[in-house]
């Protein structure tokens, strides 16, 4: 689904990594590991098209990169894109519908992530874990095959880590693919790619 070949990435004057290659197949979850500053987030942002790499190629199976990013890719980074002053319901509706969700998909995401009691609250009233669940809902509401996740479990308690793990497994079982930058083990990962120790 995704092939990276000979990727070199730097931020300003700092070289993050050189000549990195990896692939992500359908039905596979890969844990992206490495020390702080190694460039995990930058790699994910480059795959999402936010950063232009210095060298190398990023290819998506059977579709050109711009189209893949508009239709086939989910990105969930440290910043969740939620507006603190808006109701959770409005933000979920915007984020999901913008990415192409229908009302049934949104309702299913609300149900599986138990968001209903939170929907009439302002986003700023939610805890970090609740915000993460709200942000994650757009991935459930809008079917897209490739998930790029940056520390997906970070603010979650054990119960919701387990639930998100099950949702990730369900996504993989349906033929999706996940590349997740993690420090903790990713239970659904079939393998890990270590991008180094940072500089």
């Amino acid at each position, binding site marked *: 689904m995704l092939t990276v070949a000979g990727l070199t990435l730097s931020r300003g004057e700092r070289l993050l990594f050189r000549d990195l290659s990896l692939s992500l197949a359908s039905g596979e979850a890969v844990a992206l590991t490495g020390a702080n500053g190694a460039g995990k987030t930058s790699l994910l942002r480059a795959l999402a098209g936010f950063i232009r790499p210095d060298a190398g190629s990023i290819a998506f199976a059977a579709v050109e990169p711009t189209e893949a990013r508009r239709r086939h890719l989910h990105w969930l980074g440290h910043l969740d894109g939620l507006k603190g002053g808006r109701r959770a319901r409005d933000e979920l509706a915007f984020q999901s519908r*913008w990415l*192409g969700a229908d009302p049934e998909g949104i309702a299913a995401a609300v149900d599986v992530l138990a968001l209903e009691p939170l929907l009439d609250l302002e986003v700023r009233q939610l805890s970090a874990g609740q915000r993460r669940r709200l942000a994650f809902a*757009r991935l459930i509401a809008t079917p897209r095959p490739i998930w790029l996740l940056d520390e997906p479990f970070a603010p979650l308690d054990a119960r919701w880590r387990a639930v998100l793990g099950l949702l990730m497994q369900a996504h993989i079982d349906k033929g999706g693919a996940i590349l997740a930058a993690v420090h903790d083990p990713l239970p659904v990962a079939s393998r890990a790619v270590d991008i180094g120790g940072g500089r």
Partner: protein
Amino acid sequence: MKALLILWRRELALAWSGGGGPLLACGFFLCLTVLVPLAAGGDPAGLRPVAGGVAWLALALASTLSLERLFERDLEDGALDLIALGPVPLELVVIAKANAQWLAVGVPLAVIAPIAAITLGLPPGQAPLIAFSALIGALGFALTGALGAALALGSKRGGLLIAVVVLPLFIPPVVFGAGALERAAGGLSPLPALALLSAWVLFAALVAPFAGAAAIRNAQG
């Protein structure tokens, strides 16, 4: 098209719900147009020849107030990343945001512009022309303002930078808009000045989406 409508409605909601929206811009505009006659000594006859120019200058300044909100908050909270992965090219996103800015700020300013201009000494008979020209000009302000807001993305003092980038771009519409009022006051047709104003808005509509989208991509990287 459906996705654009979703974004556009969200932008309108954000403009009305957050600070720096239409009420602030209109309040600033009215304050300026009240302050100028007071500062000029309260002589309406002396102010009348420059009233059109002052009204347009106030309109331009008021239009810059909420520009920082357009992209900066979306960059800060990650919403711009989400928007970039939507089905719509960033060029159309810039147009949608500028259009929402025009509706949320420009149109209310155009509605109250006749009141402010008459306060400055323009004849009440010019009210329709003032509102119409302000409506066109405000669309241009929104488009070039969106470009300025995109160029200033990620800078530490974005609001100030936007003003520095945008105000020179506002010179043509201020000149053409004030010119239309001046011609009408002199008994001439305002159409040539309005045509130039419209041409400038068209130019902004062609340039701002592409340059703005490029600036956004640069800021995300």
